[in-house]
Each structure stands twice: as C-alpha cells, then as structure tokens.
C-alpha cells in the first residue's frame, strides 16, 4: 500500500513539475530587457524555412526558453547559494566576505597589457612635455576593495600599482595607503557594487589635490543625501540575492554647474536624478558611461580657475563630481568610446592639468589606452601664442584686392593691359585703374594738362586727388620720362611729383611701381636707364616716404631684359602677361618700405594673420552681377558687330565708365560702352539712350569731346589711330546718341540710324 502511494506521489510531483513550467512559461508576460543582467533577452524566434533547416531556429528557441524561464531569478539565486554551500567560493566571480560584502576574485595580471598601457601613457607624457605647456600629468590607480580590505587573499593590486608608478613618467597618487589608513576603510567601497562610494571618491579627490599641492576640499562644504536601497553590479552578477543592499550617497555642494555630454544633453547638476529609478543607480553620477563629458563650474571653481582633463574609467563618474567643485572646467574622456587624439581638447579647452584615473582591474585589461595620443604642435603653438607680446604686427606676405579698394592706379601705356585684365576678370573692382598713354612724371609734376585724362577731361594731379580722394595712389610711370630725358631728370620729376601729391593730400599713401624691363634697347632709352631709375626708386623709398613695388624680375630673361615672348614690340606687353603682373602686384614680398599703417596683426608663430584682420589667399569671388535686361542698344550693337568686323572689344561698366569716360549714370537712361581690348587701337563705340532730347544733346557734346581727346592722346603715340579717332562719328537721333571711333565709323553710323528707324 505504502509503496503504491509512494509511487503515485513520485509520479505526481514529477509530472507536476515538468508541466507547471511550460504552462507558466506560456502564460507569463515576456520582458525584453533584463535590468539585472543589463542585456536584451532572447526574443521569440521567427520560424522560417532557412532557420529551421539550418538548425538556428531550435537554438534560438532554446535560448528563448532559458531567458524567459519562469522564476529565472529565483533559480539563479538557488544555484548561487548552492555553489557557496558546495564550497566553490574560490571559483565564483563574486563571493561573500566579511561584513556581508561581495568581493571579486583577485585580478589576473596581464603583463602585456600593463606594459602596453604604461608605454601609451609615457608616449603621451613625452608629447605633452615637448609642447612645453607646463601641464602636470598624474596617474591614479584605484585598488580593488579586496586588496584594501582583506588581509590575506592574494590580491596583486599593490605590486601592480608599485610597478606602474615606478615605470610611468608622470606624477602618481598613492591611494592604497590613503585608503588603508582611512578612518573606516569599509566605507570606501560599496558592498554590492565594484565601484567606490562617494566617501572613497572624496578621499581620492583630496589625495589628488595634495599631490599637486593644491587646496583640498572640506567635508563641511557638503550636505549628504542618501538613497536606499542600492543593489549594485556585483549583486546582479553574483546571484546572491540575500545580500544586504547599500545606500547611495549624493554629496551636494550647491555649486552651480552645467554638464554636457556627447549626446548634446545639458544638465544643471552632476547628479542625474532620473537614473535613480533604474536598477543600476550608480549611473546617477554623470549619467553613467559617456565618451565625453564637460562640466562647467559656473561659479568659476576655486581661486585658481583651472581646467582639468580627466581620462578615466567608470570610477571617475563619482570622482568627477568632486573635482567639478574645484575647477572651472572638468572634461572627462572615456577612451573606450572617445578615439580621437586629445589635441583639440587640450588646445580648445585650455587645459591646465591632466589626470589619468583607472581601477587596477581595468588598467590590466583595458587596451583602449592605446588611443591616448596627442599632437604636440598645435599645443606648442597655442602656448607660444599666449606668450607672445600683444599686437604683433607685420607686413603682410600676400595682399588681396581689398587692399587696393578706394585707390587710384595711375599708369602709362604699358599699364593698359593690367587695366583690361582686371576689367575682364573682375579683379580690383573697387580700384580705379587709369592708363593714360604718354603720361610722364614730369608732365604730372608740372601740372601739364595734356595726357592726364580724368573723367574725360584733361586734369591735373591735385584736381584728380581732390575729386577722386583715393586712400592710396599707385603710380606706374617712368617710360615716357626716360624716353624723353634720362635717369637723373626723371628722379627729380619723381620728387616733384611726390611733393605735389602731398600738397593736396598729405596723408595719402603712395606706391611707386618699378618701370618694366624693355625687350630691345632703343636709342631713346635702354635697359640700363630702366635699371638705373628703378635702383634710385628703390633706394629712396624711405627718404621720400613712398612704398616701392619691384616687379621687373619676373619678366626678365637671362639678358636682364623683357622676355621676347612677353612683349609685342619693344616696350609694350602682351595681355597674356597681365595675369602674372596682377599676381605679383598682390605679392607682398615685392613691396619695399611697406606703410606701417597697413601692417596686419599676426599670431606671431605661423605668420598667419589673426581672424578679423586681413585675410589671405585668393581674392574674393566677384559677386554675381544682376542680369541686365536686353535693350534696344544691345540689339543695335549686335547688328553692328555682326556686320562689321571689329577688333576684340571690351565693355565698360559701372564705375569705370564714370572714371574713364566721365559719364555718370545720371547722364543717361541706358548706355553701352565698348572699347578695344588692347591699347593699340583707338576703337570705341558708345550707344546711349537719354531721358529727353536735351539730355541727348549734352551726351552728343560729350561724344564729340571724346573724339578730340582720344585723337589727341594718340597723336604722338600711334598717329594712324589718332587719325581714325579724329574721323570718328558722333551722332544723335531723337533721344539716342552714339559714338563710333573706328575705320568703319561711317558705316556704323548708317547701321545705327537704320536700326533706330525700325
């Protein structure tokens, strides 16, 4: 009888056990994420043909069942306590020790990683030293609780720490003795977590400050807030659920801070109180693991106002909170996630101290210290910059177009290609470039109204300076002087010229450009004379207070004269050379006796100007011209050029029309102005529409004047062109006025009038 009952009981118990579980499993809701294990639990597997045939489906199903087994945590606990009972403590990852504390096993010493990490730190220390930035580097290794609290137990922490401190080229913090000699070392670490408590972090912060000889915080500055219970990481990993929990202490100092991390979030405190609701409450300190955390102490920190860079593992989450009170800025970097060199941080954040903090365990196994690196150059530059005297100014090496804004560039016929180049390429847009053929220093100095044409009229230099009022005057004359006289008279003329200019405008900056080399020596002047004048100009720049621009060398060949391929005839240059001319005009190294008021502020180290001063490099891109509506004048021009062959014509627009031709926009409603692209032909075409017939008549007068001026200006220069100009046609019909300087002027006039008929 008893046997039968016994059998039934056995069968009942067994069948109950094995059937209760699947029922519970199917009924119970499934969690996605296990707080205790800090991982996602295996989800229900998908049944597909591949997964079934390959066998992965059943594997996933097995894991799914195991991960969601009813009473899983209970069984894990039973297993853990059974392990203890069976005496297998030494084989468990965490075992209970005196005081109900969970200890981890002594750390395995991986010498390879230890030495690699020390090498990384030392390489970093050497780079830091070479930057001569005077930033102290300190290493803090945190011993494990077992090594501090257990007398026996074979923890190698002390020997690892001693070895590391002996071999590291940095200062170090001896936490082992600090902790061992603390009033109650038990309070320094959590019982259920592998981290130190706030008390431990506080002592560590004090120890660090002492190493640097800086003031140490005081306990009285803090009010403590306790949060219980705290079940830490050791608790979760051990399965020993009956262990007494800890309480978390937040040491509040009231310091106003702003905490940012790499996610972009901003917090007004080092404590993230919302994290207290999670299983792992340690994340309340600085929100747990982040690659980069920036704590700004809004009250500025203690008197020194220093900035600290803390390279760390998770122990610094609580350490950082204390250091935040003492420094203006604490930057925390976790090399597990932050893989960039620290150069930028060191330079941009103005770091004064660097602390490397690692627990012994991590220091022996974490290979991420290999990412500890920096480039000393930028830091060294920054340091030198800080040490340089303020307001270091010097002559710029490169100029931009804006240097020549509101300036007047006066040249002779040789100069023409430069002005056309600039017009065509949108360079020197705010500079007036005037090339007046036959102009010479002597003429200008003696105020001869012959070749200086300004706004369509013969002008004198004082008149030009007064109406134009340029900031700078750049002069490229001299050919005609040398042709007519010689070096010595020319130099006298230059002196007089300068005096005349200064009479009207005493403050004006004057730049004198060298005379271009000539290709072939002529009777009237030769290269020796050119060189002679240039030498005088160069030597007397300081005496007479102008800046001399030497450009000749770029155009010379072995003979010391103008290269054959650069020149048309003997003196005049081909347009293809104008780009070179322009580039060299912008080359600051060609300038001698550069005016000091044009000096720019440099950073003193790399010779680059400071932001906000002149910027170097390419000239700014020309702004987009607003597109112009096509008018009758365009059509007429099109017709004319379509039927009559003209040399390459250049259109004058904007300011150049005014300064070159003397026509202001008020004078006409609509106008199109073209002249020959090089200086060797007198061709010009004006097409204008006036407001009324009276205005048209005024424009006609201007046109006729233009004929006269042009003819005269070419008379001694290119007589045939002068004749063509003289035979030019100025015509008005109704409100429309035109000027044609061309061998085909008559025909153009016919076309113009015909077009107006339609």
């Amino acid at each position: 009888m008893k046997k039968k009952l016994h059998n039934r009981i056995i069968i009942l118990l067994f069948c109950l056990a094995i059937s209760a579980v699947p029922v519970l499993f199917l009924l119970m809701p499934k969690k996605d994420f296990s707080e205790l294990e800090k991982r996602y639990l295996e989800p229900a597997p998908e049944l597909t043909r591949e997964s079934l045939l390959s066998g992965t489906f059943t594997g996933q199903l097995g894991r799914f069942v195991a991960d969601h087994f009813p009473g899983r945590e209970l069984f894990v606990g039973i297993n853990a306590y059974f392990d203890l009972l069976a005496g297998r403590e030494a084989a468990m990852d965490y075992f209970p020790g005196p005081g109900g504390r969970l200890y981890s096993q002594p750390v395995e010493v991986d010498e390879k990683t230890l030495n690699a990490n020390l090498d990384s730190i030392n390489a970093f220390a050497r780079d830091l030293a070479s930057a001569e930035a005077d930033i102290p580097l300190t290493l803090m290794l945190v011993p494990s609780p077992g090594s501090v609290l257990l007398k026996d137990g074979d923890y190698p922490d002390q020997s690892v720490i001693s070895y590391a401190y002996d071999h590291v080229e940095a200062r170090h913090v001896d936490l082992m003795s600090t902790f061992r000699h603390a009033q109650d070392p038990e309070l320094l670490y959590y019982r259920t977590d592998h981290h130190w408590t706030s008390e431990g972090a506080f002592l560590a912060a004090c120890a660090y400050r002492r190493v640097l000889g800086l003031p140490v915080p005081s306990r009285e500055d803090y009010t403590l807030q306790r949060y219980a219970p705290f079940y830490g990481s050791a608790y979760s990993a051990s399965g020993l659920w009956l262990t007494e929990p800890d309480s978390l202490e937040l040491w509040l100092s009231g310091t106003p801070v702003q905490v940012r991390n790499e996610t972009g979030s901003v917090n007004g405190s080092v404590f993230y109180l919302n994290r207290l609701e999670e299983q792992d409450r340690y994340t309340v300190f600085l929100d747990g693991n982040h690659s980069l955390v920036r704590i700004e102490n809004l009250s500025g920190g203690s008197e020194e106002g220093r900035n600290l860079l803390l390279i760390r593992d998770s122990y610094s989450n609580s350490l950082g909170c204390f250091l935040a009170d003492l420094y203006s800025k604490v930057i925390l970097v976790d090399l597990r996630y932050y893989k960039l060199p620290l150069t930028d941080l060191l330079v941009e954040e103005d770091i004064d101290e660097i602390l490397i903090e690692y627990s012994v365990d991590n220091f022996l196994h974490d290979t991420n210290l290999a990412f500890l690196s920096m480039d000393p150059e930028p830091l060294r530059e920054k340091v030198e910059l800080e040490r340089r005297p303020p307001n270091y100014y010097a002559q710029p090496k490169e100029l931009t177009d804006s240097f020549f804004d509101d300036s007047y560039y006066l040249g002779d016929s040789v100069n023409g290609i430069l002005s056309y180049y600039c017009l065509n390429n949108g360079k020197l847009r705010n500079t007036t470039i005037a090339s007046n053929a036959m102009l010479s220093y002597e003429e200008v100095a003696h105020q001869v109204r012959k070749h200086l044409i300004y706004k369509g009229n013969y002008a004198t230099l004082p008149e030009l300076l007064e109406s134009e009022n340029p900031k700078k005057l750049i002069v490229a004359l001299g050919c005609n002087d040398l042709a007519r006289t010689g070096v010595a008279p020319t130099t006298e003329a230059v002196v007089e010229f300068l005096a005349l200019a200064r009479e009207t405008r005493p403050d004006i900056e004057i730049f004198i450009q060298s005379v271009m080399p000539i290709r072939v020596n002529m009777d009237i002047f030769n290269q020796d004379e050119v060189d002679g004048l240039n030498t005088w100009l160069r030597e007397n720049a300081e005496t007479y207070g102008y800046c001399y621009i030497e450009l000749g060398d770029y155009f010379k060949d072995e003979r010391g004269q103008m290269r054959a391929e650069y020149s048309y005839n003997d003196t005049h240059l081909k347009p293809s050379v104008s780009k070179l001319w322009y580039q060299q005009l912008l080359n600051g190294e060609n300038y001698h006796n550069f005016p000091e008021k044009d000096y720019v502020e440099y950073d003193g180290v790399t010779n680059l100007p400071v932001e906000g001063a002149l910027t170097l490099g390419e000239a700014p891109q020309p702004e987009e011209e607003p597109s112009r509506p096509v008018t009758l004048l365009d059509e007429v021009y099109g017709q004319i050029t379509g039927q009559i062959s003209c040399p390459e014509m250049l259109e004058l627009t904007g300011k150049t029309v005014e300064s070159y031709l003397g026509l202001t926009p008020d004078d006409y409603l609509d106008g199109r102005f073209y002249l020959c692209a090089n200086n060797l032909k007198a061709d010009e075409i004006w097409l204008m529409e006036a407001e009324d017939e009276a205005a048209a008549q005024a424009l006609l007068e201007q046109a006729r004047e233009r004929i006269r001026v042009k003819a005269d200006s070419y008379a001694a220069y290119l007589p045939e062109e002068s004749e063509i100009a003289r035979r030019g046609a100025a015509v008005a019909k109704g409100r429309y006025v035109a000027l044609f300087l061309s061998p085909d002027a008559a025909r153009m006039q016919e076309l113009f009038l015909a077009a107006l008929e339609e």
Partner: protein
Amino acid sequence: MSVFPVFNRFCEGIMVFSDLIFLFFFLPAVLLVTKLSPAAWRNTELLLFSLLFYAWGEPVYVLLMLAVILMNYLAGLIVPRFSPGTRGRKAALAAAIVLNLAVLGYFKYTGFFLEGLNRLTGSRISVPEIVLPIGISFYIFQSMSYVIDVYRGQVEPQRNPLLFGTYVSLFPQLIAGPIVRYRDIAAELLERKETRGAFAAGIVRFVYGLAKKVLIANQMGFLTDRMLLTETGTLSAWVGMAAYTMQIYFDFSGYSDMAIGLGRMLGFHFRENFEHPYVSRSVTEFWRRWHMSLSSWFREYVYIPLGGNRKGPARQVLNLLIVWALTGLWHGAAANFILWGLYYAALLILEKFVFGRFTARLPGFLRQLLTLLAVAFGWGIFYHTDFGLWQSFVSRLFSIRPDPAKTLRFAAAYLPTFLIACIAASEAPQAALRKLRRGAFSWVETLFLVLLFILCTAALVNQSYNPFIYFRF
C-alpha cells in the same frame, strides 16, 4: 583538447536530456501524448517524437537516419530469404555491413583518413568539411547488431517498418546509448507493461542521472578545463586528470541513467551500461563494468567472430589489438583515440599474460588504486586530441612544476564536490539505499530527489545550454 569545446561548435540547438526544452516541453509532451493515447498508437507516436527529437537542431540528417533505417529494415527482410549457410545469405549480410560502415566511415572518418593519407604520402588532397550527424555511431551499431542477429537466426526479422524505425530511433538511447540490441527489446516493442511502479522507478533513475550529469559532471568539467587547458604546473595536471576521470564517468553514466530511466517510464527495460566501474580492481574488470553495451557489442560481433581466445594466445593478442584499436577508433576520428584503445589492449594483454598473477595477490584497495591510476592516465590520452598538448601534459605530470596559489585555491574549491563524486562513484550509496528504502526513509529519499531536481533546474537555468561529451559518437 577536450571534446567538450569541439562539440560546442556543432551542438548549438540540439536537444539533450539535460536541457530545459527537453525537460519542460518535450518530455511532458511525450508523456502526456503516449500515456493518454491507446496502446496501439504509442509506438508510432514514439517514432514521431523520436524523429522530432533527432531533428531538433539538425533537421537534414533525419533523412539520413531514415535512409539507414530503411536500408537495414530491407536487409533484415532480404537476409532470411537465403537459407542459412548459403553464399547468398553471407553476401546479403556483407552488403548490409559494408553499406552501414560506408555511411559511418564517410561521415565520421573521411577527414581523418584523408588527413592521415596526406601526412603519410605527402599528397595534397583537400579535406572536405563533413558534419558528423549526431548519434550516428550509436544507431549504425544498433542497426548492424540487428542485421547480424537476423543473419544468425537469433531474432525474427521485424516486418513492420514503423516498429523497426521505433527501435532504431527510440529517443532515450538514440543520441548517446546505451547500444540497445534489438533482441533485448523486441518483445517490448510489441507489448510492454507500463505500470506505475515502473514509471516511478524510471523517474527516480532519471533524476539521479540528471543530477549526476548536471551537479557533478558539469562541475568537474569546469575544474578539468581550468586545470588542463590554462595551467602549467604539476599538481594542476594531476588534479585535472582526476577531475576528468570523474567528469567523463558522471557525464556518460548520468546520461545512460537518464536513458534507462526514460525507457522505464515508457515501459522499456534497457540493460545497464555502467556497473560502478571505478571500484574495479583490474583493467579487465574495468572493461566489464564500463560502457558495457559497447564492449559487449565488440565482443559479440568482432572479437568472437575473429576467434576470440579460441585460436591460441598469439591470435588472441592479435584479436585484442584489432578489437581495441577499433573500439578506440569508434570513440573518435583522431589518432589519440586509437592510441587510447591500444593502450588498453596492451594493459589487458599484459594483465592477462604477464602481471595479472602478481597483482592479484595485492590488497584490494591497492589494486583498485593502481587500476584507477591506469584508467585515469588513459583518460589523459583520451582528452588530448593534439599530440603536442598531450606531450606537455605528460611532462607536467612527471616533473615538479609549481602552480600559483590562486590555482590551488580554485582546485580546492572543488574538493567537496570531488569527494561527493568519489562517494557517488562507489557502491556505497546504492548499498545504503537498498537497505534504507523501506519505511519512512523512502520519503526522505523523495524529498532528496525533489531537492536534486530543483538544484538541477537551477544549474541549467544558470547556464543556458549544456552539451555533454558522448553524443557525437
């Protein structure tokens, strides 16, 4: 290298008895369905469940097993068509044997053979990756035993293919034995008594087996791997060898216990596979107690047909060498297993012809100790598939190299478990139980079993999956 990690790669997802899915989903389903359905359906249900069990994790190879079943079923029908003693009958048998061995040879030994060929002749034949289907060594040997028994006229051929299939694929013994001979359960296939007493006895046996596997074998496994794979000292080598000795016994015998227990629950009587082998006082005795289904298979189907000991001592020695080389080879497709087999062949031969007389006069415990040392050393050969690693292991054993204190502490942590294992491996518990199983004590035992089951579940939950050593054979 232990077979443990080698298997882990292949056995993701397959079902073993010490597995949460088996215990709490498959087993209740089987019991529910078979116990509550009419007796006539049970064999088919068992067949289907067994195929499901086998297919779990390796679905494609079910087809292979079905093919082998079909092939042997047909052989069982063809062989009797020829009269005994005729050439036709011999040929049919030979064909069946050859086919069976060809299948086993291809899946299990191709790589080994080709690698050996490459190494000996310098050829460069590429070795294909062939997956070893689970349990193939067991079910091929089972099937062969059937065909040979039919040939010998010792059993009636099974005309019902479903029944034959049930025999071959029966899930309790499918993956890791014991190797059940057809004639042992032929009768029970047709009709079996499923009493409550049997069921309960089966449960008890099963739980003990589970505990042996999960609570002892797995723990010993941790110790073994730590001592043999990562340490370099002498003491750790000896500890590792002892730990492995325990691990392999409790693993294999635990599984056999579970198989026998499950069989019992379903109404089958399987033969015992282990008879406290570690109390043996000689190597000969050891092999009469260890993996008995295999050694008896080899004796019956290889040793005796070769002549056994009836053709003179020289021939006997040769026969022993052949049989043991094959036994070793059966355990694994690697040279160390053959060496292991020959090691025992040598010991057996020497014991029989040389020193058996002397050792018989020694006191019992000394004989047991010597036997255990020989067996443990044999397990050392068995464990290390890589010859170089075995060499360093042996040099560790017979030199004086220190172990760090941490290692010794780790080993000491397993001492209580080891002592319990020693007691459990002896005949003492069974003897005690037999005496105490009357009266009130049986309730204590029941509570004890409940506790064991809870602890096993806890251990299994704590480690998600849990392959064991022998099922790749």
